[in-house]
């Protein structure tokens, strides 16, 4: 590429990074009096950013790889660079992040219209986007780590947006603390890599030319970071709790920013992972995907169902990346961003619509047992929700089908013909493909088709909330990213560089599986009376384990406090002793040392006074003393 084109791309990149930051800063500095400006301003800036990101994406295309780097500081003759690496994967991720973030911004204008702290909300939203874009484009692991932390902080702030709600604050703290575990892993990984290779550039081949044991350790440490950020087993419990935040925030967390960061990091540092680490990744993903899918089956909170489905889908993605399906997993991550954002925004629309009607009654508007028959009342929401749900369950002609089939094919090929542990992982893929339509169907049935449980005069949500829903639903259709009259060729080029030779049997089997499970779900849930069902919250005893850990930590802190007290006692003793000694030395100083000095001065003064008294100006006494001196002299001479 020429230099001119390079600098053009550089400016585009920096603009995409800088615009959300600008939006965030201007939202924070805006006065409460003109708070209504904040949503507009940040939405417009995000729109510009997403347009620029799409230009950037088409510039980068599928072939180019552009990197920029400035020396940040030198450490022991090794330099840390502020470096950007733009390949096709980074640029498409930036595009998705900016588009989804823009849509969430637009949606939030309607959803958060009655919120007093709008400026803070939109500022954090834009900052979240900024952090994620920085993470995506960064090429130095230290830079990635910094943005990784910023993503964590902004998600914390956003989950705890309703500061009056104690549960929200608790959920935010939980998310933050569980993420800290992963951050420690990430940091240890960084330390190992830096101390062995002396570089943190992901594109530097020196990075992996270190002893295999340490490479594997670093890989595992980095993967712990991914586990917490992408809500994998055993650190996924923060994600359902994070539903306490506003629904658009959940959409952003689940689709484009927070949880996608971990999966994206897996792609970014794929060279780090050795065979053994990949096994760990695949198995972790398999456990997570099953746990998430089963969890989603037993929830009644609309947002928690979606949260568990996110866990399940991310488990699928991580499993695919640990197995042989990196492209498939990445592909699914991008599709997931769209349809999951669509689902969350749809859920938000339903909650919003119900909330408008039921402000007085204390009905739980998030409980799907209280919904039903919303099909006719919220037609636009219904259609977009249905399309996104179809994409989630992988029904043909949606984006979810394309990528899920991609994963299935690659995983089946990866598992091979001989039976091995890989078969277990692969069967998890199939099991999730079977389970996903069931809980999705259950969700849709309860919300839209069932007999209405309450009579409301529900109105469709405002137009500003409908537009993002429609856009995301269209984006969830398969026509953009698979061969169709409307496809975007560069997307296909990027994603399907290694599209596996389509195995017709797999396609048929997966379609059949999806249809069977949908039918099964229909028969299960058709006549079910939801009112008698007990609410089950599958935490898989992970909360118990973490409670145990926190209890342990408490005990430990008590023990250390006891120990501390003993130490304090010792320190007090020492200090008392020191004070006593100080008093003694002070006394000695005052009376002995100073006394000697004073005594000398005093005696000198006395002598002076005596001798001075001789010179009293009386001539006769001078004479007398002269005579006395003479007498002494004579006596001294004679004897």
């Amino acid at each position, binding site marked *: 590429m020429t230099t001119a084109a390079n600098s053009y791309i550089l400016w585009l990149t920096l603009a995409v990074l800088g615009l959300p930051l600008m939006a965030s800063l201007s939202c924070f500095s805006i006065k409460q009096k003109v708070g209504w400006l904040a949503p507009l301003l940040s939405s417009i800036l995000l729109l510009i950013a997403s347009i620029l990101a799409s230009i950037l994406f088409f510039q980068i295309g599928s072939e180019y790889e552009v990197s920029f780097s400035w020396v940040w500081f030198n450490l022991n003759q090794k330099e840390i660079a502020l470096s950007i690496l733009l390949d096709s994967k980074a640029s498409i991720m930036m595009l998705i992040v900016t588009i989804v973030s823009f849509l969430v911004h637009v949606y939030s204008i309607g959803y958060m219209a009655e919120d007093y702290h709008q400026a803070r909300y939109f500022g954090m939203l834009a900052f979240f986007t900024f952090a994620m874009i920085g993470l995506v484009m960064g090429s130095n692991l230290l830079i990635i780590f910094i943005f990784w932390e910023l993503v964590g902080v902004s998600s914390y702030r956003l989950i705890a947006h309703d500061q009056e709600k104690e549960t929200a604050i608790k959920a935010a703290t939980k998310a933050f603390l569980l993420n800290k575990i992963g951050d420690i892993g990430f940091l240890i990984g960084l330390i190992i890599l830096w101390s062995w290779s002396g570089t943190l550039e992901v594109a530097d081949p020196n990075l992996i030319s270190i002893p295999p044991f340490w490479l594997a350790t670093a890989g595992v440490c980095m993967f712990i970071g991914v586990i917490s950020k992408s809500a994998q087993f055993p650190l996924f419990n923060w994600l359902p709790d994070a539903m306490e935040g506003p629904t658009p925030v959940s959409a952003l967390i689940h689709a484009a920013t927070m949880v996608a960061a971990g999966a994206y990091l897996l792609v970014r540092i794929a060279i780090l992972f050795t065979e053994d680490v990949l096994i760990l990744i695949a198995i972790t993903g398999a456990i997570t995907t099953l746990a998430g899918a089963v969890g989603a089956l037993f929830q009644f909170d609309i947002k928690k169902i979606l949260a568990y489905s996110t866990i399940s889908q991310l488990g699928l993605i991580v499993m695919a990346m640990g197995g042989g399906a990196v492209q498939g997993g990445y592909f699914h991550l991008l599709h997931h961003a769209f349809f999951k954002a669509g689902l969350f925004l749809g859920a938000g629309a339903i909650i919003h619509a119900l909330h408008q009607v039921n402000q007085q009654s204390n009905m739980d508007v998030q409980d799907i047992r209280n919904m039903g028959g919303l099909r006719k009342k919220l037609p636009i929401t219904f259609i977009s929700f249905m399309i996104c749900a179809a994409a989630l369950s992988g029904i043909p002609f949606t984006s979810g089908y394309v990528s899920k089939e991609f994963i299935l094919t690659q995983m089946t090929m990866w598992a091979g013909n001989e039976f091995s542990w890989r078969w277990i992982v692969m069967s998890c893929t199939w099991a999730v493909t079977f389970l996903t339509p069931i809980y999705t169907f259950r969700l849709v049935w309860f919300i839209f088709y069932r007999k209405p449980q309450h009579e409301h005069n529900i109105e469709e949500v405002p137009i500003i909330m409908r537009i993002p829903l429609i856009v995301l639903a269209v984006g969830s259709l398969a026509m953009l990213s698979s061969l169709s009259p409307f496809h975007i060729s560069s997307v296909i080029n990027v994603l399907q560089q290694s599209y596996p030779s389509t195995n017709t049997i797999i396609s048929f089997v997966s379609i059949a599986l999806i249809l069977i499970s949908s039918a099964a779900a229909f028969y299960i849930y058709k006549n079910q009376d939801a009112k008698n069902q007990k609410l089950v919250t599958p935490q898989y005893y992970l909360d118990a384990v973490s409670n145990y850990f926190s209890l342990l930590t408490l005990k430990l802190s008590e023990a250390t406090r006891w120990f501390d007290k003993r130490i304090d006692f010792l320190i007090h003793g020492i200090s008392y002793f020191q004070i006593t000694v100080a008093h003694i030395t002070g006394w000695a100083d005052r009376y002995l040392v100073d006394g000697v000095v004073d005594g000398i001065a005093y005696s000198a003064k006395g002598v002076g006074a005596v001798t001075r008294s001789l*010179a009293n100006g009386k*001539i006769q006494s001078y004479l007398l003393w002269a005579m006395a001196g003479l007498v002494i002299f004579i006596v001294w001479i004679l004897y």
Partner: protein
Amino acid sequence: MSKQELLFFFSAFLFCSGLLIAVTKKNAIVVLMGIELMLNAANLNLALFNFQKRGMDGQLLALFIIIVAVCEAAVGIAIILKSYHFYHSSVLDQISDLKEKN
């Protein structure tokens, strides 16, 4: 006791009384007289020692001292006169400018 010894004692007596006068008397002129007495005691001593030793050294020295004493007395009286003009007193206790000012 020989005659010479007696004279030595007389000389000592003269010196002591001169010293006593010079130290105790108030008036500067009397102090000057005391000093003359002490000088005369010294002269007497010189003359007496000249007896024990052949020659005229002691007596000549005594003559010199008499001359010096005359000069000293003249100068002393002139100073006293001058200071009397200055201080309007010849009492030594009132003239104590040699002392440091405090």
